[in-house]
């Protein structure tokens, strides 16, 4: 793909861009709709019997594996919870059945069941205080106005914290990043280790680079929430734990604000570690 196909609402998708396999039905992602019929009344086998139209402005992408097409629209929007998103929430207050948490400051509180933790029973359940952080999955978003969003830290089917790491986040520090950056970080951190590319996954090499440089101070933990939050902890770091945590946060927020390319990301990591006097 040399030049991406950028569409505006109302643009029809040229049929040569659509995946050609006809075995599975085509799945329409966000930003695409069947809005109109082709002008010719009798569809033949060569011409498709439908016209796909973009409803949002953005890049047209296809996923050959899932036979899906969608539009990547502007990435830095306000976060709106979607089922199965991983988010970092802050406990605001608790009631007998639920913790009431904040996911985004401008939205109403979301609820997290007191027993929605791995191994929690009525006798042994986590005692979260106001201001505590949890890494949770969006279980359900209600319909209509005033609907409550529910989070969970456990897979209801298995009773395990899946994927690993869900639950109370102790120690560490949270940094604000843009929503688009959060999505890129999630892709980069889930794919790192499996494939070593020159430019990293999603154009990010910062995590690999930090991992290499901070190996001596005991490495670090990171949790990325789709709501534009990233939690960093270097509890193994001993003396430099706090410095390393802040350095990682500074790297991530600077890369986010200035849209740095991989080469600049590497330079930034070494510069910040030098400035913070963390010997590597």
């Amino acid at each position, binding site marked *: *793909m*040399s030049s*991406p196909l*950028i569409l*505006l*609402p*109302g*643009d029809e998708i040229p049929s040569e861009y659509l995946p050609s396999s006809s075995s599975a039905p085509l799945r329409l992602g966000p*930003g695409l*709709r069947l*809005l109109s019929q082709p002008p010719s009344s009798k569809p033949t086998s060569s011409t498709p019997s439908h016209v796909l*139209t973009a*409803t*949002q*402005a*953005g*890049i047209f992408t296809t996923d050959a594996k899932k036979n899906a097409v969608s539009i*990547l*629209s*502007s*990435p*830095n*929007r*306000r976060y*709106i919870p979607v089922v199965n998103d991983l988010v970092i929430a802050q406990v605001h207050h608790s009631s007998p059945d639920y913790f009431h948490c904040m996911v985004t400051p401008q939205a109403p509180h979301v609820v997290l069941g007191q027993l929605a933790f791995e191994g929690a029973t009525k006798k042994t359940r986590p005692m979260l205080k106001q201001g505590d952080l949890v890494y949770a999955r969006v279980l359900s978003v209600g319909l*209509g*106005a*005033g609907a409550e969003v529910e989070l969970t830290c456990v897979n209801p089917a298995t009773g395990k914290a899946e994927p690993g790491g869900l639950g109370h986040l102790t120690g560490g520090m949270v940094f604000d990043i843009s929503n*688009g950056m959060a999505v*890129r970080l999630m892709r980069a951190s889930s794919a790192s280790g499996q494939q070593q590319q020159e*430019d990293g996954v*999603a*154009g*990010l090499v910062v995590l690999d680079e930090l991992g290499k440089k901070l190996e001596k101070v005991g490495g670090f933990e990171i949790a990325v929430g789709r709501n534009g939050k990233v939690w960093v902890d270097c509890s193994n770091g001993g003396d430099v734990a706090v410095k390393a945590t802040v350095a990682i946060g500074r790297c991530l927020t600077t890369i986010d604000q200035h*849209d740095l*390319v991989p080469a600049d990301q590497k330079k930034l990591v070494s510069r910040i570690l030098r400035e913070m006097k963390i010997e590597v």
Partner: protein
Amino acid sequence: MVGPTASLSPLVRADGSASYQCPSTGSNILGSVNAPVELPGRRDALKPEDATVEVFVKPGTAPASVGERYVEGIIRGVVGRLILGRERGYQRRGVVITLAIVGGENVSRGDSYLTLLPALLHTALLALLSASVPLSMTFSATVLSVDAAGKITREPSAEDAAAAKSLHVLAFSSKGHLLLNESQGAFDFDTWERVRERASAICHGTSVGEDGDVAMVESADGQPLEGTIRETVEDQVHRDYSWKIDAA
């Protein structure tokens, strides 16, 4: 002819925003869109399957009054037809469009809003695109003045508009349909037909000559407005996804 300039997402906290400058009319508009938002009050009963579109026009120096109400109604009529309010997450919610006039000639009470209307419409459209609100199509709009001698001026300045015999605002969808026609002053059908042809040429860049040839009028009118809007959006997409586009 210097065309308008625009940029997407200048505001950080709004869901979508756009700023728009039109040098020939001197207008400078900043627009923001918040969508989908919970609206205060219960409007579910009126249209339970559709989104509510609200438009606010804020003049730079005076409180909004009748003139702004009037132009808000026109803008709501145009964009309300384009917004797909039945998409998931939009039913019973609101799409709030706020347009602030931050520069240019002030429209005093009782003056015509038509000179500003295309700029307001374009800002609203770009802000909606920036907020990724689902739309069925895009549009472009222009204002033309006809003076006593029958000469058509594109996007007249405030003095030209005051001296004109009639003013016309026309908006065309990206599929070429006429979406909006607001006129004021005295004119006849032939004048309107000439105005429509010129406006269509300004918005889409082509006009059909007498022999059926399609003549490009880029030399006279600069880039067609639709192209300007497309380029603005493409620039922003390239900036947002530079990491993805460079890697591919």
